[in-house]
């Protein structure tokens, strides 16, 4: 820039100084420090060179408490000396129940547990409380012996009082209808995988809650057995809490078929679906961005979970170099050139993927069409996993894409 331009550098600088001259609100810096303190209370300090990940070998330690200790031999030597072993509950005496000999690892909820052989297991398929079918959020073990064990977990919001929040969370009917309803502060204490929690017993049901890694874990046993508590304790003693492995994005269980773009994909139906209003023409329309102002050509899904999916497709002009054309008109600002991007496969077609600040963008070509799939996210640490889960649901049907002459207005 130079001073000979009719808009001088000084004018721009002065304008920016005027815009930024207002002082910060009183107390904002203090509020930030308080937010940081709250964050640290939830997530301990992660210093350079130290691993924050908890060893997984607690599972082996927990197996020592199995009825009969069938799997315990030799595993005790692996236990870290700094981690106290779970204390057996007073009622953990041998019960008339099969040994828990097989490990079940929850695909979504961040725990593993031992279960009897040859029983029915139903893994969770959705975030807890996000489905009309309550049990979709739970991993369930149907023993067929008058005892049904369920487990689930969810991230705890910032800055809440645990007991009060848990009581409110469980009382809304979307998570645990027909629960015991005992205020958490009045419940008996229980220890699960070394974490102190609370347990309530009511007719035919036992429910326990425990907090680990910023997550609330909920375990229940519906049992028509006199030794229900002993059965629950036997299951609970085998639980290994692994909050780092929990999934905090929803299952994409509803299918959207694009009326214009020639693809279908899975999404979670929470009212956030926004089909494209016009056909995509990257040459004449603004480059895809964060603003949300130019999303007309995109089929989009606002998840309400700090993540927005959008996708579109367009016929590729004859004779162009794909990478150069995509970089000129499509590649979002801040993303690497397409030729330098990693490879990805979408519905059997090889494409490219760029992980850029707060967004992931993948492009793939099928039958002469360029497809763009994007995830805009709010600093989600699991953005790539969430994106890959979405990609796994995508089916490309270029033959169904609308031609420009039949564009929706």
């Amino acid at each position, binding site marked *: 820039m130079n001073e000979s331009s009719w808009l001088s550098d000084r004018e721009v600088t002065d304008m920016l100084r005027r815009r930024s001259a207002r002082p910060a609100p009183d107390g904002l810096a203090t509020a930030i420090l308080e937010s940081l303190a709250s964050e640290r209370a939830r997530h301990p300090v992660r210093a350079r060179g130290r691993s924050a990940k908890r060893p997984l070998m607690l599972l082996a330690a927990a197996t020592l408490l199995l009825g009969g200790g069938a799997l315990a031999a030799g595993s005790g030597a692996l236990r870290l000396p700094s981690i106290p072993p779970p204390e057996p509950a007073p009622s953990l005496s041998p019960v008339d129940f099969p040994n828990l000999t097989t490990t079940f690892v929850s695909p979504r909820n961040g725990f593993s547990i031992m279960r009897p052989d040859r029983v029915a297991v139903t893994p969770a398929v959705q975030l807890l409380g996000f489905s009309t079918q309550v049990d979709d959020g739970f991993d369930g073990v149907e023993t067929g012996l008058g005892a049904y064990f369920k487990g689930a977990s969810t991230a705890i919001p910032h800055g809440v009082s645990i007991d009060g929040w848990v009581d409110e969370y469980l009382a809304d009917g979307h998570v645990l209808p027909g629960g015991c309803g005992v205020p958490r502060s009045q419940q008996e204490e229980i220890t699960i995988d070394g974490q102190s929690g609370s347990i309530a017993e009511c007719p035919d049901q036992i429910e326990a809650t425990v907090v680990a890694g910023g997550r609330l874990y909920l375990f229940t046993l519906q049992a028509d057995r006199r030794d229900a508590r002993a059965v629950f304790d036997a299951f609970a003693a085998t639980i290994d809490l692994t909050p780092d492995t929990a999934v905090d994005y929803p299952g994409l269980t509803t299918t959207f078929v694009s009326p214009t773009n020639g693809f279908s994909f899975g999404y979670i139906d929470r009212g956030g679906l926004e089909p494209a209003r016009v056909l995509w023409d990257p040459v004449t329309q603004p480059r895809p961005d964060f603003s949300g*102002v130019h999303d007309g050509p995109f089929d989009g899904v606002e998840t309400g979970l700090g993540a927005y999916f959008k996708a579109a497709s367009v016929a590729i002009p004859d004779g162009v170099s794909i990478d150069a054309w995509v970089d000129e008109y499509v590649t979002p600002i801040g993303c690497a050139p397409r030729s330098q991007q990693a490879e990805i496969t979408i519905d059997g077609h090889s494409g490219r993927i760029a992980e850029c600040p707060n967004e992931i963008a993948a492009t793939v070509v099928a039958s002469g069409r360029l497809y763009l799939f994007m995830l805009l996210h709010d600093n989600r640490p699991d953005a790539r996993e969430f994106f890959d889960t979405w990609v796994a649901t995508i089916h490309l049907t270029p033959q169904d894409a609308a031609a420009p002459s039949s564009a929706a207005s």
Partner: protein
Amino acid sequence: MDMTAVSPKAEPATEQPGSLLDVESALDGDIGAFDRLVLTHFPRTYRIALAILGSEADTSDAVQDAWLAAWRQLPTLRDPARFDGWLDQILVNACRMSIRRRGRVREIPMPDGFDAEAPQASLSQVAERDALDRAFGRLTVEQRTILVLHHLERRPLSAIAAALVIPVGTAKSRLHAARAALERLLETER
């Protein structure tokens, strides 16, 4: 137009006394050191975000989000000497997300006391400044960001490129494009 020939006097971001030590200490888990970094760099982060976003409410949210993200992402900072640029990158992302959440580009109100800052300004001068501010508010967040880092913060192109995660050549061309867009929008605002 050669944008580098007569560019503003480059004042590369330099660590303030003790700041580098605090970055090192924070990386080693010293909470107090990170809090000192917050207090040291807070005015700069607020100034940059306010210039980009214009709205005090959005700015407060973005700055708070940026510092929380900085804490969470601190283990990813490999070179303590690059803390300023690393923090700029996080702050710019927070500003972009603020725009995204807003869903549309909001009209930017003129700051209180705008006229009082230039008591001798004529009505035409005030109108011209008003038009320039409105034109700036119509730029994309990326364009605003690059102009703020260049004209307000006097960052060298290499630092701007690092903050925006783009090559230096791209930063140069985008700075040029942002300036051209501002001039075009100013023409329509007059």
